[in-house]
């Protein structure tokens, strides 16, 4: 059990970058961007093919980010210059990317098992620091030494990476460019009257969003040891799930809080899925169904809770009024009658 949870924490940190990308398009730009399903694979495919062909894994990952940026820009071009509906331009790009991803990889699956990847490199680097041993002794001391993950490197470094990206995003969204980007999603008429080229910002914002998604895809491919053409299916829903769960659980009062919530949401989502898959009759294939159910719950539950709270508040109010009524019956009734 701890091993499974540990794995879900690692995966959650990797997918957090994708969730931040989805947050950028979905919340900041107010653009439901389905390109994500394709650009996630594009990231994995570009990184995998370059690594197999002997490139440095870090360079391969950067190339993957650039590829994702371009994919996002194309969706933006379709929407702004081609005047195609937001959802449709994302879907078109997603479908187009499926074939492009197959072309990039040359086959439907590229294995990275014997290759040197970003993940193996940071694991090696981590080993030299000897932190694992220290943690292990620490854990043994408090009596849970029985659970031994292979390494803490991925979890630590990926959470740090997610937070670096988060802090960078928080900062960017406060710059002049960032403010214009946010306002483009908030009120297009207004920003255009302040000489903001909304088309440019939409294209650029979608590029950034998909760059993060492809970054996540590249890391996930290296983490799993393969890139598969089908690994992006339902990715947008997972991204939305992370954003919505995060906001529901951790709150989204301002940008700094919201981006932290998205990372938390991505990790939480993985934990929920891991727990759900441990239920006897559920299979791995049920994961997409579970994801859909989680999103539905995250969307409906907060509203139900709010309504319950509201009802309770009204009931209290009514009770208080009745009590006041009982205390001064005569006067109160008279007052009501004279009101009529």
């Amino acid at each position: 059990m701890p091993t499974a949870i540990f794995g879900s924490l690692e995966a959650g940190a990797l997918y957090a970058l994708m969730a931040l990308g989805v947050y950028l398009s979905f919340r900041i730009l107010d653009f439901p961007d389905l390109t994500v399903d394709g650009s996630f694979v594009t990231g994995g495919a570009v990184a995998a093919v370059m690594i197999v062909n002997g490139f440095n894994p870090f360079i391969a990952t950067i190339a993957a980010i650039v590829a994702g940026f371009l994919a996002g820009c194309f969706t933006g071009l379709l929407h702004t210059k081609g005047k195609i509906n937001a959802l449709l331009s994302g879907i078109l790009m997603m479908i187009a990317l499926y074939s492009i991803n197959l072309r990039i990889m040359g086959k439907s699956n590229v294995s990275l098992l014997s290759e040197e990847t970003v993940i193996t490199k940071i694991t090696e680097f981590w080993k030299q620091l000897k932190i694992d041993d220290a943690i292990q002794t620490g854990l043994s001391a408090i009596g849970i030494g029985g659970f031994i993950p292979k390494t803490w490197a991925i979890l630590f470094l990926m959470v740090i990476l997610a937070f670096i990206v988060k802090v960078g995003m928080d900062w960017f969204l406060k710059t002049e460019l960032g403010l214009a980007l946010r306002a483009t999603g908030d009120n297009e008429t207004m920003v255009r009257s302040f000489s903001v080229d909304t088309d440019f910002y939409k294209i650029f914002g979608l590029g950034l969003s998909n760059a993060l998604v492809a970054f996540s895809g590249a890391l996930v491919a290296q983490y799993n040891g393969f890139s598969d053409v089908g690994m992006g299916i339902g990715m947008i829903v997972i991204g939305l799930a992370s954003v919505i769960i995060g906001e529901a659980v951790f709150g989204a009062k301002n940008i700094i809080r919201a981006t932290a919530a998205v990372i938390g949401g991505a990790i939480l989502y993985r934990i929920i899925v891991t727990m759900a898959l441990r239920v006897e009759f559920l299979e791995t294939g049920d994961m997409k169904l579970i994801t859909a159910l989680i999103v539905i719950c995250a969307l409906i539950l907060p509203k139900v809770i709010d309504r319950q709270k509201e009802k309770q508040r009204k009931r209290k109010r009514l009770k208080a009024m009745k009590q006041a009524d009982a205390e001064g019956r005569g006067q109160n009734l008279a007052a009501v009658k004279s009101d009529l």
Partner: protein
Amino acid sequence: MLQLNQIYKVFNEGTPDEKVAINHINLNMSPGDFVTVIGSNGAGKSTVMSVISGKLTPDLGTVNIDGKNLTELSEHKRSSFIGRVFQDPMAGTAPSMTIEENLAIAYGRVKSRGLGLGVNRKRRDFFKEKLETLHLGLENRLHAKVGLLSGGERQALSLLMATFTEPKILLLDEHTAALDPSRAELVTQLTKEIVSQYGLTTLMVTHNMQQALELGNRLIMMDKGQIIFEVDEAAKQELTVEKLLNEFQRIRGEKMNNDRAVLI
């Protein structure tokens, strides 16, 4: 400052819904002119605003600002020297962003946008100073989201945002129409103060005749895509709502009998 030459715009040309929105309009505004525009619905007032702001391009004619022909310049490029306040208080501000962030976006109109912080200490002081001129206490609520402000406060903020960078042209499109009478009066007063403070060349559309008389040094009346009545500075002082209505009746009435061209 602003010149409209023979502007002509038709919608749905060649269909039964064809409508000539602007029929060869000429307008010449000198620097510091404040022109109020009145006219019934469908007279073409808003279309004139859209043509000036670049939201629509005219079918014929040119728009010149400061001697430069801007007819084909895109809306966002043009807006670096055109300030606009819309009728809808929601339209002029970004609701999920704070007051200071909104001001920072407005400030970006005159400066190219880069990776510097949108709101730094120097700017915050500057924004505060500007907000104080509204006398609404907004300078103490810099971090409040604009969505939480009332319609009147928002419209006052929109007005400030449109003007504090001193645009060459200010376009006010019925900017007090959606407010209650007391708030409308407040925004009208602010408009008066701000326009005279910066000496802005202003074009204001309004349905409120009283407001049209109270503000500005010139007045034009539009009907069916044409300017049917024009009042200069001297004559405007003498004008009353009644006279204006009579004039409107007279022109409209005569129109039934006479040839259109005679009147214009």
